[in-house]
């Protein structure tokens, strides 16, 4: 164990505990302005702190921090590699953007539950950061529950019956999922006596017993229910469409991705001995079915937010393609995809929130003419959509390029076809939305638009614009970031 940089432990402590303490402050001292400033500054500090952390990870390889100085196998480790680092960056960037947006949103709609929103957001943030750096199965269970505990009420905060019944459905899916996850953890412990991921990965790669395969199955099904991976996606379109825009952005960009992140984290590495190439192909097929189903459903929706929500179902499917491809290039591609999708999807949902604020509803046919008054906002939405579809020069293109390269290198051309199809369908549903928006308005649609002539609040306009710009900027930095992403990529034996 090499000596760790003296900044690593304080950084990780800050990332986990600062939002948690801020949440307690938010609960005890309900002052909107102070709390918004607090959440924005916490986001900014997180970004600053992540720079030296990334440097350390790059220089020393994956970091293993044993909490309280208790060494493995007794201690509980925190583990940071390229994948975890990418997710921490995504959380900080999306979190900062959403925090700025939320400060404007809560003011402009005078949301009665603004206070609860802030408390839940801090709790969610803390849980996500803790989840991404956890290196222990049971710790992951606890952090997963913290995110659920914050995410479900975030859906229910939106007014109206639809939000409440969607939150209820989400709750049942999430709870059954977490119980299955815990069952899997128990089976792993029964079989191996280990819980720490680095130790599970370091085992001699002999064939695992049936207990471990069943454990992996329980864990995967549990996580799929939480991540809304096809075919356990039923709750996601309703919940993400019903939540308020900043909450939808967080849920789609981060919460659903956190569970999907765990699927690839656990399949590659800790449980590599528990599956065969045939099972990996099956997981890939499930991913592709998710991509196709989500995209086709997105094409059939009549309202804007369900389109974006179904797009999330589709985009999460790509993450599963890492399992059959399993190479360093695929690893980079999939992480990059997760990054770009997170930023772009947050931008998409925030921009959609602005449209709803401007025209009072999100029916697609009613969007006609909104390009005249909400042009920058619509541009942000279109650019984010292009990044999701993976057209050059956005980051989505680099991600798909890497995934397709990995597929062709290994002679598994069918995945390349699926990735291309997914991109095409994504472009279709994005351009369908944009084409509705640039139609000339019919006379009776003019009226509500006029009210927004004075333009949007800057706090509402800039977060989606900048997040979409970040998703595009990732298209220029592929070569630069690739070595960071590759840190800790498991030595895979397909």
């Amino acid at each position, binding site marked *: 164990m090499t000596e760790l940089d003296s900044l690593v432990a304080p950084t990780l402590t800050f990332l986990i505990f600062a939002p948690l303490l801020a949440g307690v402050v938010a609960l005890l001292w309900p002052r909107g302005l102070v709390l918004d400033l607090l959440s924005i500054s916490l986001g900014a500090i997180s970004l600053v702190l992540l720079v030296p952390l990334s440097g350390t990870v790059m220089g020393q390889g994956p970091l293993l921090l044993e909490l309280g100085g208790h060494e493995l196998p007794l201690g509980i480790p925190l583990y940071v590699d390229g994948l975890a680092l990418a997710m921490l960056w995504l959380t900080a960037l999306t979190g900062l953007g959403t925090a700025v947006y939320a400060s404007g949103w809560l003011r402009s709609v005078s949301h009665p539950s603004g206070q609860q929103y802030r408390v839940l957001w801090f709790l969610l943030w803390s849980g996500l950061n803790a989840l991404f750096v956890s290196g222990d199965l*049971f710790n992951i*269970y*606890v952090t997963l*529950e913290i995110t*659920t*505990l914050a995410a*479900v*009420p975030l859906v*229910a905060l939106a007014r109206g*019956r*639809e939000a*409440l*019944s969607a*939150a*209820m459905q989400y*709750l*049942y899916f999430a*709870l*059954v999922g*977490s*119980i299955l996850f*815990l*069952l899997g*953890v*128990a089976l792993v*412990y*029964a079989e191996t006596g280990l819980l720490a991921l680095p130790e599970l990965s370091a085992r001699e790669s002999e064939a695992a017993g049936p207990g471990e395969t069943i454990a992996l199955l329980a864990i995967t099904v549990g996580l799929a229910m939480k991540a809304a991976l096809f075919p356990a996606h039923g709750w996601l379109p309703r919940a993400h469409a019903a939540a308020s825009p900043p909450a939808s952005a967080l849920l789609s960009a981060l919460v659903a991705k956190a569970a999907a992140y765990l699927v690839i984290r656990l399949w590659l590495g800790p449980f590599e001995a528990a599956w065969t190439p045939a099972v990996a192909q099956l997981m890939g097929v499930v991913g592709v079915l998710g991509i196709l189903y989500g995209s086709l459903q997105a094409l059939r929706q009549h309202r804007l937010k369900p389109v974006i929500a179904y797009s999330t179902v589709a985009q999460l499917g790509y993450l599963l393609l890492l399992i059959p491809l399993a190479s360093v290039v695929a690893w980079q591609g999939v992480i990059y995809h997760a990054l770009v999708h997170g930023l772009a999807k947050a931008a998409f949902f925030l921009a959609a929130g602005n449209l709803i604020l401007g025209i009072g509803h999100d029916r697609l046919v009613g969007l006609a003419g909104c390009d005249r008054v909400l042009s920058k906002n619509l541009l942000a939405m279109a650019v984010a959509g292009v990044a999701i579809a993976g057209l050059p020069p956005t980051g989505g293109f680099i991600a798909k390029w890497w995934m397709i390269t990995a597929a062709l290198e290994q002679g598994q051309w069918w995945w390349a076809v699926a990735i291309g199809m997914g991109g095409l369908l994504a472009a279709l549903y994005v351009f369908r939305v944009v084409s509705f928006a640039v139609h000339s308005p019919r006379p009776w649609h003019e009226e509500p638009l006029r009210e927004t002539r004075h333009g949007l609040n800057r706090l509402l306009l800039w977060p989606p614009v900048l997040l979409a710009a970040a998703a595009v900027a990732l298209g220029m930095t592929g070569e630069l970031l690739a070595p960071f992403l590759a840190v800790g990529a498991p030595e895979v034996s397909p």
Partner: protein
Amino acid sequence: MDWLGLYNYWVVVILMMAGFYIVIAQGNLVKKIVGLNIFQTSVFIFFISLAKLDGGSAPVYVEGITEYSNPLPHVLILTAIVVGVALTAMGLALVVRVHELYGSIEEDEIHEQDGSD
């Protein structure tokens, strides 16, 4: 192998299936949450059963005792119980909100009202 010796696992399986069945089959939201709790408890019992050693004593250091049960699962499940209580509380709070908005906690009645909107 004496099947009676494994009776705690039989209990786990029966509780698990019963709990899961309640979650799926019951229309009453509170009963669904009770079902989830039964389901969850079965996993807790399973995890704790793993720790038991034949003839092992409680993991407290006492002169003359050489075999101890594994304390780690107990500690983990203690944490899991806390998490479970928090989630149950949240679920019940949501049910209270549902009752305020719909005046009912039966799923079919709620769907009926959703449909008529």
